[in-house]
Structures are given as C-alpha cells and as structure tokens.
C-alpha cells in the first residue's frame, strides 16, 4: 500500500497526536491542527485514533502505486493502482489516512512534522507515502461536534487591556486571515483595545487569543512559541479548539465568553 505525491499546495505534513512533554525545552506539542478530524479519518481507516496521517492545509494530489486503502474523516475507500485522488475541502484542514497508519520516523516520540523546529518536512512532489502496516482495529465514528459560537475563557492579562476588551471580542464576527498557519491563526474584525502596558514575554498555550499592538487577535496553534510577548485576552475552551481550527480560511467566527466550570460541564 503506497501513494506518490503528485502535487502539494499549501502545507501538507504528516501529523499524529503530537509530542507532549517538551514545552520546557521551548517546543510546543504540535500534532494535528484539528484532532477530532484526525481521529475520524483514522477510525474510518480502522487505525488507532492518533496514528500518523497526512494533514492537508491546502490541496494534495496523490497517485496510488498499488491498491491502497485510504480514508478521510468522511469517506473510506480503496484506491486502485494508478488512480489519482485530489484532497481539498471547504474546511481548513483535512486528513488522509492510510490503513495501517502513515509510515514516518518517530522523532522525540511523535511522527508529527514541526516546521519551526525542523522536525520532519512538508510533503513534496515525488515523495512516497507508505502504510506503516499497524494492526487494524474497529471503532465507532466520533460524535459530531456541536455548532455555534466559540467559547473564550477570560484571559489572565486583564492589566493589558481596556475593560471592554472581551466585549469587543464577542461584539461581531471575525474573519480568518489567509496568512494563518500552524503557528497562529490571524483574525480580522473588531479591534481589541490595549492599555499602554508594555509587552512581557510570558508562557503561552494553544488556543490563547493574543493581541498585538494593532488590536487584531492571533489565536495560537499547535506549533506556537512557548513564550510570547503579546498579552492574552482569553483562551479558547479546550472542547471548542477543534471547531475553531476546522473553520475555513475567510470564514466567519463568532466568539462568546465562556467560563471554566461550564466548559467542563458541557464537554
């Protein structure tokens, strides 16, 4: 079972659940941008939930070198030898799983490509993608996620904002800028007013809504720096991260203010 990359537009990488445990060395865990979509593709391919698969942020064209069992989060099928498949979806990230998992070197405990740390490399034309041949298992498709607004838990850096900063964040929809990547998702919308407090380099977390001087928020992604100078107005509830990162570039995002207790109760 193997595929050859014919074309890769945007960022196409191998991703799994990421490598936790290296934040203290300056390395964020990385891993799939939309974890539930990776799980769905792997379950459709009868793989372990976090088996390595191909994350497509853009468009990927592959050709089967031999009959190959593939799956995305929506379909599971067998590619015939020589067949071409183009993977490009209205959603921001899609995952192409191979039955048995994608074979990729394990680096510091994960097969995930981490661009900033130069761990692994994006897929390029001519590259072969081979099944790792891991044992097949059967699991139910994951439950669909709820819709609606993305909950933001108020951030710890209130000192750096005017009192109505959170109100501004939830006042109108934001658009996802095409300059977004796995490090950060840039948003265009209502300006978040900052106080004159200086930037201080402090620990960050995936889902943190950072606000640079121009007031246009950046949501930190899986390859975020472990410390950052921009104050954090809020952090997306962990149960809403996948819905946020699944939104397509150019799409609209509506935030609402959440609370830690309710994020646990609803998950």
């Amino acid at each position, binding site marked *: 079972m193997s595929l050859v990359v014919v074309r890769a537009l945007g960022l196409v990488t191998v991703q799994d659940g990421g490598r*936790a*445990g*290296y*934040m*203290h*060395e*300056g*390395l964020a*865990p990385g891993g799939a941008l939309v974890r539930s979509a990776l799980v769905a593709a792997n379950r459709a391919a009868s793989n372990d939930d976090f088996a390595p698969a191909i994350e497509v942020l853009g468009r990927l064209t592959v050709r089967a070198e031999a009959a190959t069992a593939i799956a995305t989060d929506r379909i599971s099928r067998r590619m015939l030898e020589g067949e071409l498949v183009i993977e490009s979806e209205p959603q921001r990230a899609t995952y192409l799983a191979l039955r048995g998992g994608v074979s990729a070197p394990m*680096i*510091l405990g994960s097969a995930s490509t*981490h661009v*900033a*740390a*130069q*761990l692994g490399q994006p897929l390029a034309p001519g590259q072969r993608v081979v099944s790792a041949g891991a044992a097949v298992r059967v699991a139910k498709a994951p439950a669909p996620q709820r819709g609606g607004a993305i909950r933001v*838990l108020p*951030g*710890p850096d209130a000192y750096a904002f005017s009192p109505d900063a959170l109100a501004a964040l939830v006042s109108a929809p934001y658009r996802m800028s095409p300059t977004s990547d796995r490090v950060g998702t840039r948003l265009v919308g209502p300006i978040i007013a900052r106080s004159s407090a200086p930037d*201080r*380099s*402090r*620990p*960050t*977390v995936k*889902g*943190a809504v950072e606000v640079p001087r121009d007031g246009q928020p950046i949501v930190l992604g899986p390859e975020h*720096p*472990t*410390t950052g100078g921009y104050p*954090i107005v809020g*952090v*997306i*509830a*962990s149960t809403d991260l996948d819905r946020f990162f699944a939104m397509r570039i150019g799409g609209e995002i509506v935030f609402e203010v959440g609370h*830690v207790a309710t*994020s*646990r109760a609803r998950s």
Partner: protein
Amino acid sequence: MWDAFGELCYRPPVERLGDRALRFARPHAAPGRILEAVRAWPDVIDAVIAAHDVAIYFDAEPSDDYEALIEELATLPLDSIAGREHEIRVAYDGEDLAAVATTTRLSVAEVVAAHHAATYDVASIGFLPGFAYLDGLDPRLELPRRETPRARVPAGALAIAGTQTAVYPFASPGGWHLIGRVIDGSMFTPEHGARLAFGDRVRFVT
C-alpha cells in the same frame, strides 16, 4: 509577602490560562528544581519556566488543589540541581560586534574577552525550541534590545540583550545584538531536543 527592601509586594494569585493550564509568578528557587517538582504532580504533562512566570499544563481541567502545592515551591532550594557543563565553540564575528563595542565604550577585543570569560547559567527557555536565556553576562555588556528588530536572524547566531546572552537555534526575527555564531552544531536537534537544560553551565570558547 515582604521583599528585600522591606516593602509589601503583591504576588499575583494563580491564574487560569484557559482550562488546561495554570500560570503563576515564578518562585524564587532554582528553575530546574521547580521543573522537577511540578512535573511530578498528578495530571501535569509539562511546564514552561519563563523569566517572571511559570505555566503548568494539564491533560485534564486542573482543580484548585494546586494552589497549595504552588505556594510550597517557594521553599525549594535556590541552588540548582547540578547539570552538565558545556563548552560551545563560537566565532566572534557578529554583525553588531563593532556597534556593541562603540556603545559600551570598549574595544571589540574587550567585548569578546568579557563575553568569553564568563560562565553562564540557564535562566529560562522559550521563544523558539531550544532558545535558552543565559544569565551571567558581564555588566559592561548590558544593552537594551535593538530599536528595530531584524526580520531574520540566522540560525546559530550568538547574541546579547539586557543582562543575558543566547544562541538563536533557528532563523527567526530577533531584536538582540549579534556578536558571533556557534560553529559546533545545533542548539536543538531531532535526536536530543534542546542542547541546554536548566542547571547546565555554559562557556563559549573559540
């Protein structure tokens, strides 16, 4: 709590950084000891020790029980756990070396000698994978960051800013003064992760 000048100083409480992390003021203890302590706590998967703050990361929503544990961190020893001794080979040929000499009113040779003579400690790690902020810079070399950061500092650049020195592990934007470059390998590798860890002592040799 009273600080060294007898003034009441406010220690911010433990703050929630979303629903999977806590942030608090960095306790006055060796960073390696803090890291070792917090990583042994239940449900903690990792920690970031920054200049003035610590964040700890969980695989579940943290309870309020951690506040007492965090308070106890201040009782950890100040002296660090013995780490490794590094001699990192560098060439002192950075783009800003002449400007640093001018601003500090030293000769280039004196800047190099001052930087080369010191032994450095890992104060914090962050910004980029393997970027270690090193304490121990000769006070004569203290300078504010560049007014205009560079759009691209090359990987391996040896730099100074404020009271610290550091090596850029990867090419990135940066506002530090470049005084040289590392010539004996990377600061972050797929095999070993970060070259420097808390408790390590670092000397730069030519």
